[in-house]
């Protein structure tokens, strides 16, 4: 039985429209062309359906954001088994049973597989059609802004989509890289160039010369808009120490765009895994405020606690933390969560007593089966702990002493759902019932 929805289908393949009755069901399994699949990726309904399928099955190996896990990264330009839409479809349909990926053609119908490919196509990021030109031993007076206008020594394609400055052969050289950069459809992003001195780098985006922001730590940040952008990056190697790493960076994304950056990221994978008991880790963590403490639970639910604001500043699903970037070299880069955020916010979920944070400051945390955080004064204490209440739902418990006469309210960040039997959620706040002022709990989910 053909399960394609004619409405979606009709737009992309007139040849099959007439088959919606199912009379020629064999045609339903006729493979879509690359163009058909690309067209399908423009259809929001098909993409949404593909996303739902992805999140029900594929994410466990390929990551919530397609960033890879035990399976490959599905967002970059590197496709081991072919990156054309029809090749991706074939890979999903037939699987790689000897590598641990089942043949999903036996699990899903063709429509579902097509939608899945459509979704994957919309999530592509990084360089496509990247090319390079080198200029060996350029005149010393040559400015980096003039390199692209100069006659090149040689050039070629970079099919993997990584800027590679090692392709030049001389001690002194310049290079120009040009390609289409696929930037995620939402959020703010920057093209990040690390360990560069400003005169050596010249960036044009969609034909316009860019002025970088100083990102600290010898980083240049070039804001880049969503969608597909034409990038031209000129690079002039001035001395032995000149070297660059290029990344696409967003609030929750750090994608290597150069060979050195790719190798660096691969070398800086140091996951902190959670086995039988919760794990507590303090590190510099991307998106969490300084001094935060991270707790990872078996089963893949994790949160961040700030001892500065005594609040829950992040919650994420999936693997715990990659501390590699924070323990590599001088440890300039932050640790990164290995799953996907349910939320991050500062001050986050914060308890207020009569409208104010409880005074007295952070006191201690305890490790064990149920880590606890304790703060306040001797006579007014708060103990916060948590336990998973579902794959993506965390239950936080607040135990209070000396605060029974105060109005207890929880500040709730936007974009998350808080439920509690111990109070009423109103206008971004949980107002704790008078009777629950010594102990109450909430559940937090997306």
């Amino acid at each position: 039985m053909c399960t394609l929805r004619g409405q979606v289908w009709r737009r992309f393949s007139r040849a099959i429209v007439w088959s919606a009755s199912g009379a020629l069901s064999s045609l339903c399994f006729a493979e879509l062309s690359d163009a058909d699949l690309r067209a399908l990726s423009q259809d929001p309904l098909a993409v949404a359906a593909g996303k739902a399928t992805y999140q029900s099955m594929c994410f466990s190996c390929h990551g919530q954001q397609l960033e890879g896990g035990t399976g490959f990264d599905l967002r970059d330009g590197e496709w081991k088994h072919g990156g054309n839409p029809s090749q991706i479809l074939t890979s999903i349909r037939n699987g790689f049973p000897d590598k641990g990926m089942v043949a999903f053609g036996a699990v899903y119908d063709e429509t579902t597989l097509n939608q899945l490919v459509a979704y994957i196509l919309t999530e592509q990021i990084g360089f496509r059609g990247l090319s390079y030109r080198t200029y060996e031993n350029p005149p010393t007076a040559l400015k980096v802004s003039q390199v692209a206008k100069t006659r090149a020594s040689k050039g070629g394609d970079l099919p993997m989509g990584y800027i590679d400055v090692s392709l030049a052969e001389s001690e002194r050289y310049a290079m120009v890289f040009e390609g289409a950069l696929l930037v995620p459809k939402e959020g703010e992003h920057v093209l990040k160039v690390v360990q560069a001195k400003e005169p050596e780098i010249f960036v044009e985006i969609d034909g316009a010369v860019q002025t970088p922001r100083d990102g600290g730590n010898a980083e240049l940040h070039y804001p880049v808009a969503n969608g597909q952008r034409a990038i031209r990056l000129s690079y002039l190697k001035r001395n032995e120490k000149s070297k660059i790493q290029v990344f696409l960076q967003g609030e929750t994304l750090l994608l290597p765009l150069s060979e050195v950056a790719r190798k660096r990221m691969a070398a800086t994978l140091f996951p902190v895994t959670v086995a039988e008991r919760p794990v507590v880790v303090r590190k510099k963590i991307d998106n969490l405020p300084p001094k935060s403490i991270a707790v990872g639970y078996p089963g893949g639910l994790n949160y961040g606690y700030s001892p500065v604001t005594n609040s829950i500043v992040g919650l994420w699903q999936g693997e715990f933390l990659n501390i590699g970037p924070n323990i590599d070299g001088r440890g300039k880069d932050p640790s990164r969560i290995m799953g996907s955020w349910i939320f991050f916010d500062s001050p986050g979920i914060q308890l207020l007593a009569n409208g104010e944070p409880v005074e007295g400051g952070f006191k201690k945390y305890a490790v064990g089966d149920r880590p606890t955080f304790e703060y306040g004064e001797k006579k007014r204490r708060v103990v916060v702990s948590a336990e998973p209440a579902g794959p993506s739902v965390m239950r936080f418990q607040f135990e209070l002493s000396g605060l029974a006469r105060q109005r207890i309210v929880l500040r709730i960040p936007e974009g998350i759902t808080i439920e509690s039997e111990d109070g009423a959620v109103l206008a971004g706040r949980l107002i704790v019932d008078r009777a629950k002022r010594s102990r109450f709990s909430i559940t937090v989910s997306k």
Partner: protein
Amino acid sequence: MAGTVFLLTASVGSSIALAQETIAPEGYSIRTIETPEGVRFGVTGLDIDTDGVVWVATRIGDVWYNQNGEWSQFASGLHEPTGLLRDDDGSIVVAQKPELTRLVDVDGDWKADEFHQITSGFEFHDNYHEYHYGPLKDARGYYYGALNLDHRAPGTFSLGAMGSSGGYRGWTYRVHPDGTFEPWASGMRSPAGMGMSPRGELFYIDNQGDWVGTSKLHLIEKGKFFGHPVSLVDRGFSVEHIRGATTDDLDRLRQEPVVWIPHNEVANSPGNPEWDTTQGGFGPFAGQIFVGDQTQSNIFRISLQKVKGVYQGMVVNFMNGFQSGNIRLRFHPDGSLWVGQTGRGWASKGGRPYGMQKVVWDGTNPFEIRDIKLTDTGFAISFTEELDRSLIDLDTVSVSRFRYPYRSDYGSPKTDVEHLDVQSTHLLVDRKTLSVKVPLMTGRVYEFEINRLRSASGRKVSVSQAFYTVNNLISP
């Protein structure tokens, strides 16, 4: 001035090669401590209790202890600790980047169950260079720590390489027994090692860089300023005020170091000062200070002399050839000197990324410069064995002097270098000490080179170069 032959302003690199030669005082050897397999064991916090249990904090964030030769993990998950103290009650106090923390084993299973915040009264802005050193504890129960400046943090206030985003970066603090945080002294750049003398005085060692001509040892006293100006933002000065101050203005606020530690020749990135309290159990240097260096993978000695109430003294190399960067030293009750090492981020001559070693002494008396003390007319250079008097003449010791100017540049060459005429050299009655008469002045580092000297048994010193910082003279 009598004795002054000529004046140079450039750096004299005559002894740079020395630091690369093998320095191995007779009777001392390096033993490598096996560390847990597969564990990144960069030792940046080290203490040893009276039972000989060795406690370490590792750069990745673990705390381990070594009992009867076996390593066991006590805690994990800390944020790049760079100091550890085993407290009197058995708890472990760790200086980690965000706070000073007490690790408590509540149920007696030799694992930390609770992590108490002793203080977080300073700010940490997630910059990699905002290290937190210490902790030290005095006899009255106060804890002391020191806070590194940041390096190129976004929006930081900087007048060179290092900056402060406020919150007492570049300060020593102390914490009262009741937990009160008290800013204590300022002007530190990279105070990579703190130490407390047996008399309870607090010292720290700063690392060469901007505003620090070469690495140096300071005595820490309340309210003092050690020279790095950006820390003044937390002393009531505005950024504009500090930017507008001349170097002379800042110089007037500044404390002179107890000793200067010449760059490359002795150290580049020294760690904590560790007093030899073994009373001879570690050889003939009892009472002196031992310091490891992260870059040089060596250990050097400092010997202090108080002249008119002000500390000054000798710096001399001791031993090199360690496997990684020596950043933490601590004496074991058995008399051996344990060495915590890391080579990550800043290369070390030893080359290994991390590890532990110890120096053991087999009882052989080495032949070395034991000490240098200022006298009325020059210096008394004492050795560990009687000298062959037949080789002693005016050329036995060459002496020069120089200074390190106070300025914003990253490090400084030796400045105002003068080679001095030695007016007399004679052997004192103990037959171990040379009295060397040379012109004296304050504000100078004196450099000594021992030539042709032999001990009575015919041995040569393994380190022939030494330095002495003169802050005060005995006679006016």
